[in-house]
């Protein structure tokens, strides 16, 4: 009976594809998210997510999957944001804010000019699991593996640069390139996650499980591992909720991760 309820959704192939992507973003978002919360890059993540809209719409108009349009757009925007942060002495938030709202607005205009009923604004903003194709899944698996490998292999370097930038430069690390790399990986993970959680809620997936984990785990490496457990749990539970209560996957996952965060927070209040 319970087993049936657990298995049932995944007899649908689109749910199986969604599950694969959900688990992968459940791993990748908190992994990157642990760096994002400690470097206070949440706003940048949000900006990145919004900025890829023109790429997604453009790809759809040309007959490709939105994912394939979002990937290059995301990387270009990430490197531009990195450049702004390195070069500008004035507030980064202002220049990044101007850029991402402009790109997001441009994407919305493209969307309404095109007027195709195949593209729905809500799908792009909130995530739409039914439209994930086999190619999307393969691309997601590939990108997740590459990102995961880089994050593990360069773990110490990424931590050194985020913790003590100048000390890292003097120690001989290519700190600036490592920062750009982190932004590029962040854009990839965000773009991949858009399929499930949508533009508006992707930052929740990025920071909420990681923040919940950081309330419980003492050390950075254990916070990453626990964050991944929370991320996968949010993704899978959210997917079931989406199926059984017929709500969009993005909000269902975001609410699940918020519930986990709340429990972690209460646990912390109790123990301190």
């Amino acid at each position, binding site marked *: 009976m319970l087993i049936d309820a657990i298995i049932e959704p995944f007899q649908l192939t689109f749910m199986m594809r969604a599950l694969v992507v959900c688990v992968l973003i459940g791993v990748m978002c908190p992994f990157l998210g642990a760096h994002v*919360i*400690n*470097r*206070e890059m949440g706003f940048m993540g949000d900006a990145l997510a919004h900025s890829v809209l023109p790429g997604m719409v453009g790809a759809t108009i040309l007959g490709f999957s939105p994912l394939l349009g979002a990937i290059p757009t995301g990387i270009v925007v990430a490197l531009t944001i990195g450049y702004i942060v390195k070069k500008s002495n004035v507030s980064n938030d202002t220049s990044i804010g101007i850029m991402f709202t402009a790109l997001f607005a441009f994407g919305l205009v493209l969307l309404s000019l095109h007027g195709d009923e195949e593209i729905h604004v809500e799908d792009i903003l909130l995530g739409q699991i039914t439209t994930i194709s086999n190619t999307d899944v393969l691309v997601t698996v590939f990108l997740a593996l590459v990102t995961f490998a880089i994050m*593990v*292999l*360069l*773990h*110490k*370097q990424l*931590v*050194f640069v*985020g*913790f*003590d*930038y*100048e*000390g*890292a*430069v*003097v*120690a*001989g*690390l290519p700190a600036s390139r490592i920062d750009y790399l982190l932004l590029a990986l962040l854009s990839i993970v965000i773009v991949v996650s858009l399929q499930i959680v949508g533009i508006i809620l992707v930052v929740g997936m990025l920071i909420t499980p990681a923040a919940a984990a*950081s309330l419980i*785990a*003492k*050390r*950075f*490496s254990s*916070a990453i591992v626990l964050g991944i457990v929370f991320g996968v749990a949010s993704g899978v539970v959210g997917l079931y909720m989406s199926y059984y209560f017929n709500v969009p996957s993005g909000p269902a996952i975001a609410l699940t991760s918020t519930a986990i965060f709340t429990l972690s927070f209460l646990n912390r209040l109790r123990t301190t």
Partner: protein
Amino acid sequence: MPSTCPCLNEGCNCCIQVFNACIEFENQLALDSVSFAVPPGVLTGVVGPNGAGKSILFNALVGLQPLAHGKILINGCPPKNSKTKISYIPQKERVNWRFPLSVRDVVSLGTAASTSLLANIRITSRDNDLIEESLRKVDMWHKKDHLVSTLSGGQRQRTFIARALTQNADILILDEAFSGVDISSQEGMLQILRGLRDEGKTILVATHDLNTLAAKFDYVLCINRHICAYGKPELVFTKDVLIELYGSHSEMFTTHQIGQHTHVD
């Protein structure tokens, strides 16, 4: 390589040489024509009031800050392509303490530049030995699992010194290392630094407070946007020098015009 070292001794082996360095920072002259040299294996205090240009000088020594003119050589090479291993320990305000890193985590970062990528997943016993040895040297082994963000100022500095040791640095540069460190811990830190000096490390420590500590360095470099005095503490710390050092330097800098320095080498 220029024939005469700023120390003016024939055949010296100074590892840090600064020749007529001027540094402009935010459209102001931060350092005016600074020349000095440091021999290896000495502990030098860089003293001067806040805003005297100590951090900027340190940034220039490690290649983080360009010069308006003049030059800096570390063992004969400009800082950016120097093969000499330098460890830079920034002021505590420059470090992102949000990262929940243990003492051991921070010290192990010292191997990040030298070891292969695989070392991130497979820590060798050699690395482990090096980390343990470094932590014992600064008397922090018993704190290895504590989070650095929860430590006292002195313990944090000792952790960073241990990181410099795993980095196998020959030159250690510590910016405001004693600020926020209580007097008894300062003495302990000085002890550790002296021990490292005796092993041949060259150490520069910036400090803005001129308490009893400053007299305990081998050499002191007094700067306030230029070099006011440089030498052994007992010779340097005279009443005249201190009045000069902490006095107004507003009438200086007549020859240097911002942004249009003429090169004289």
